[in-house]
């Protein structure tokens, strides 16, 4: 049997210890009541933590000036994606200047690991990681995001313009 040596006779009594502990709790309670500004708890639904602009959240498909998708359906992102969650169906465009375009672009958000490799792989800045991250949803809702959700969801206000412009590229001979 091991014998624990108490530092003093007083610590054998637990009531002083309990009162000391309660005293600390009550001191903090009054401190917090008087210093509401110093509380660092984030009141989540009303108050948001300011994340950086480079945050890797839900994907955004960017659009051209005329509002159609910037994506050229080159499949680089789908090939590079480590979780294999992007599925693209390409189709031929009526306009001879545009080679292909995606008729369906789907990301299975439950498989995605938010690594950002699709954004790195894309040669024409057609896919970006956006700032939204609160995407928890009830079972049975739609977790496979389609073009409507990725490019034209309401809070994007008609789509995000891509940095890469075809006319500019042609003028520079790229």
């Amino acid at each position, binding site marked *: 049997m091991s014998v624990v040596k108490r530092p003093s006779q007083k610590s054998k009594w637990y009531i002083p210890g309990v009162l000391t502990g309660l005293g600390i709790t009550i001191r903090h309670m009054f401190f917090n009541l008087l210093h509401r500004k110093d509380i*660092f*708890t*984030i*009141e*989540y*639904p*009303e108050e*948001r*933590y300011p*994340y950086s602009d480079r945050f890797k959240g839900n994907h955004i498909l960017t659009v051209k000036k005329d509002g159609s998708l910037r994506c050229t359906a080159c499949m680089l992102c789908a090939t590079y994606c*480590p*979780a*294999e*969650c992007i599925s693209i169906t390409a189709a031929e465009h009526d306009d001879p200047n545009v080679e292909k375009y995606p008729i369906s672009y789907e990301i*299975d*958000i*439950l*498989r*995605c*690991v*938010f*690594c950002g490799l699709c954004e790195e792989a894309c040669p024409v800045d057609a896919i970006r990681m956006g700032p939204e*991250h*609160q*995407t*928890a*949803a*009830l*079972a049975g809702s739609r*977790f496979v995001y389609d073009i409507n959700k990725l490019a034209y969801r309401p809070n994007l206000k008609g789509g995000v313009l891509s940095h890469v412009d075809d006319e500019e590229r042609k003028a520079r001979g790229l």
Partner: protein
Amino acid sequence: MSWLAGRLEDVVRRLEKQNQFSWLIPNGCCGHEIKNARLATYDWERLGVFKASHPEQANLLIVSGWVNSAVAEEIKVTYDRMIKPVCVIAIGSCAITGSPFDTFDPKRPPVTVSSLIPVDVYVPGCPPRPEAILRAILELQSKLNPGPSHREVLHEALRD
């Protein structure tokens, strides 16, 4: 007497829907985000989620991380011991689809939480932010108690 017991039962059921007593299986890196959502910075006790000291006292099971055979056993045993009705939140791509460590070998598909027990809310992300976990709890509470929550009612009243 039976009338009183019935009323008491009603009250208990209503309180059960308003407060979640959580039992965590916080594996993997998502487990740290769950603890982050639980501790002082995000503090999910504000939303009415408390810590149960035993699975039999809990009505909310929160699972995250890669499901190997030992964890699958743990999930099944824990779920069986919990008194129904139980809500389940699956957090992170590992627990939901197993994609981060998927070998794409058809002989060994990853085990997912939804193949073991019914899941109510999915939180995609690797790892999801603590906000996403709190959002999952809000979604769950809005499913259990349709209509405006006490929090919204209070904020409406304070705004006027």
